[in-house]
């Protein structure tokens, strides 16, 4: 419990300066100017102490307004119209020892957006560095982050796609398999097991869940000859049950895994957090290994044969049931790994973290073509990069998943079988 509080406190400490720099200061009361519109702000130093007597000017065309920061650091300049102004802080009037933070633009251009007051924040001291990345820099960073996200999606998507390929089941409980990995790492870690052991146990737990699912539920259903649509609805029931079982034990709060907070490091032109970099490398290696197994080994050949035509595979001596069992175990382990990486990417562990990305996993699988492994990989990477890039091109952050889902619908419209799929998928 103490560790949780320490983690939360550490998190708050890290977040606090950033939020000071970005969230608008409380709006000062309008000054006694005759103008309806105003530009205003608070001047406060690193230590939150108000900075008094600093001159700030706003100019637009031939209008110039001036203000001095008051005893509580507040300043307000009345302006005649809502438009674009150049706001300049006179650095020569700053008190001794106080400087604008690195990267603070001064003077800067500001524009009104539909409100009569416009807040301008100047940050001071070296504790606060506003990131003034240029567009190209931002694009590259988001591209790499998107690749990392896409590859972790691919871990789950490849498992889902293999299961679909061999059994025909669209598994809505796959999101819960993703959640399980992260929750297990958190649980084992809370039992004071070493970090590496927690991860191994969580992966084994994910594989075990896949095994139990197939042995206890899906194989008997296949034996009964249950149709694909009923199986899909059963998987929804399973998803609901497992999601609330996890919530039952885990609770509704967000928890952090160890080492979830890390400063970004600079790799040439790219700045990336070490966690994202690890995630990218781990998922790329795992997927490459999986690819080698599928292409080069007897087991891989058998899996592809079952995916292609189960009856023919059975007739040529392949034990279809054991191949499917291995696919379920592999799928469970891959989903667990994806879940652990997703917990670091977000960052945080919650009971519904898997169902949050379930549709993105589906989008990746559908984009690439249901049932094809390479399609799932390519589709997931496209989805991951697309989700990250849409924010660079001006889509609000809370809409970034919409873009990916929308693209999926558009692709189904023009190429229903997906990028690598075959025509037969179309009904």
């Amino acid at each position, binding site marked *: 419990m103490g560790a949780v509080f320490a983690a939360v406190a550490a998190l708050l400490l890290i977040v606090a300066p950033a939020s000071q720099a970005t969230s608008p200061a409380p709006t000062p009361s309008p000054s006694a100017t005759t103008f309806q519109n105003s530009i205003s702000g608070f001047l406060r130093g690193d230590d939150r102490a108000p900075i008094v007597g600093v001159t700030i000017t706003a100019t637009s065309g031939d209008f110039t307004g001036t203000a001095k920061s008051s005893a509580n650091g507040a300043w307000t300049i009345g302006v005649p119209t809502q438009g674009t102004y150049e706001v300049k802080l006179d650095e020569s009037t700053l008190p001794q020892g106080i400087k604008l933070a690195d990267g603070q633009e001064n003077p800067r251009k500001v524009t009104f957006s539909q409100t009569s007051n416009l807040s301008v924040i100047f940050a001071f001291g070296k504790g606060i560095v506003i990131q003034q990345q240029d567009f190209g820099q931002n694009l590259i960073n988001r591209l790499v982050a998107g690749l990392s996200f896409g590859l972790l999606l691919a871990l789950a998507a490849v498992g889902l796609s293999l299961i679909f390929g061999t059994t025909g089941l669209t598994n809505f409980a796959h999101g819960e398999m993703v959640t399980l990995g992260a929750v297990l790492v958190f649980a084992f870690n809370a039992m004071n097991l070493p970090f590496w052991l927690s991860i191994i146990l969580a992966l084994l737990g994910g594989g075990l869940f896949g095994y139990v699912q197939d042995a206890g539920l899906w194989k008997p259903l296949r034996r009964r000859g249950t149709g694909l649509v009923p199986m899909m609805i059963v998987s*929804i029931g399973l*998803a*609901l049950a497992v999601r*609330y079982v996890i919530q039952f034990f885990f609770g509704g709060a967000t928890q952090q895994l160890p080492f979830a907070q890390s400063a970004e490091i600079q790799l040439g032109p790219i700045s990336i957090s070490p966690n994202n970099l690890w995630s990218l490398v781990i998922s790329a290696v795992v997927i490459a290994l999986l690819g080698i197994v599928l292409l080069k080994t007897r087991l891989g050949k058998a899996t592809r044969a079952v995916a292609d035509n189960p009856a023919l595979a059975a007739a040529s001596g392949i034990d279809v049931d054991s191949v499917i069992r291995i696919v379920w175990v592999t799928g469970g382990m891959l989903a667990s790994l994806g879940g652990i990486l997703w917990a670091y990417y977000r960052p945080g562990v919650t009971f519904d973290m898997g169902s949050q990305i379930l549709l993105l996993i589906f989008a990746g699988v559908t984009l690439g073509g249901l049932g094809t492994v390479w399609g799932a990989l390519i589709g997931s990477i496209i989805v991951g990069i697309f989700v990250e890039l849409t924010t660079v091109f001006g889509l*609000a952050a809370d809409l970034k998943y919409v873009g990916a889902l929308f693209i999926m619908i558009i692709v189904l419209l023009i190429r229903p079988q997906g990028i690598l799929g075959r025509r037969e998928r179309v*009904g």
Partner: protein
Amino acid sequence: MDFGFIFSSAAGELFSPTTAAYALATLGLAVHFGYSGLLNFGQAGFMAVGAYGFAISTLTFGVPFFVGLLIAVVSSAIFALLLGIPTLRLRADYLAIVTIAAAEIVRYIVTTNQLTAITGSANGLAAFEGDFYAMNPFPPGTYLMGMNNRDFFIRVVAWVVVALCCTLVWLLMRSPWGRVLKGIREDENAVRSLGKNVYAYKMQALIIGGVLGALAGMVFTLPRGAVQPANYGTELTFFLYTCLLLGGLGTVLGPVIGAMIFWVVLSLTQGILYGLIESGTITWLNTVQAGQLRYILVGVALMLLMIFRPQGVLGNKKELAFA
């Protein structure tokens, strides 16, 4: 434990407006899945379109009640058209994924901060039900089971709507149009070979079920006087499927009975679990976990129903939408 209170609140659920809303939305699903074999996993999206269509047209554009109703119905029909055009030619599982994605898109759009002025983002919208209650013909007073005139009015309206829609669906399904629809469910190619335009029939079924969903969305929000995006997640659709499977897929009264059973059982389990916790009989559970335990039961019930009794309480096994 106060069994009287537990049973009376469970009985209250039997005719609550929420049950009526679930019954209506499930009836829409019966038209989609039970009668036409369309696997719509986005019924929550249709409900959200109905609820928000009504709330936004009332609050932002200030239209009268019946114009708002019309706007909600028309926008859900347009939503169905938009969904149907790319997906109705595809296999069932594609339709499932696209509809669930579209429902989530609707939820993300009404949640985003970009549109707070129109949708109220995560807080949603409130105070749009004035016009509706202004039409209340019942004078203030106490009605059945101690309801006030507002509660009584919304229940009467909700269940009249349910009855009308059930009659409409019943008439439609015994008409030649309904027989073609069932034919499509059984064998699409056979119907196509008879010269029927399968695509058009499916589209009409999708629109009718979607409009029922939109009406359900309105019935759901009016008694609350508020609409919030969190209510329209994918879980809602899955609960509706549970209701549908409880009652019976290809039936008119199945959805109504399914919704009633669903809410009565949820209310009973909550009452009994809370009673056991308060009296100290159960100590390994707190009230929050008791709430989650009920939803675990919903999930398990959905699985067991689908496996062991897919035709539900009223259904006929020969009428199942799938072999």
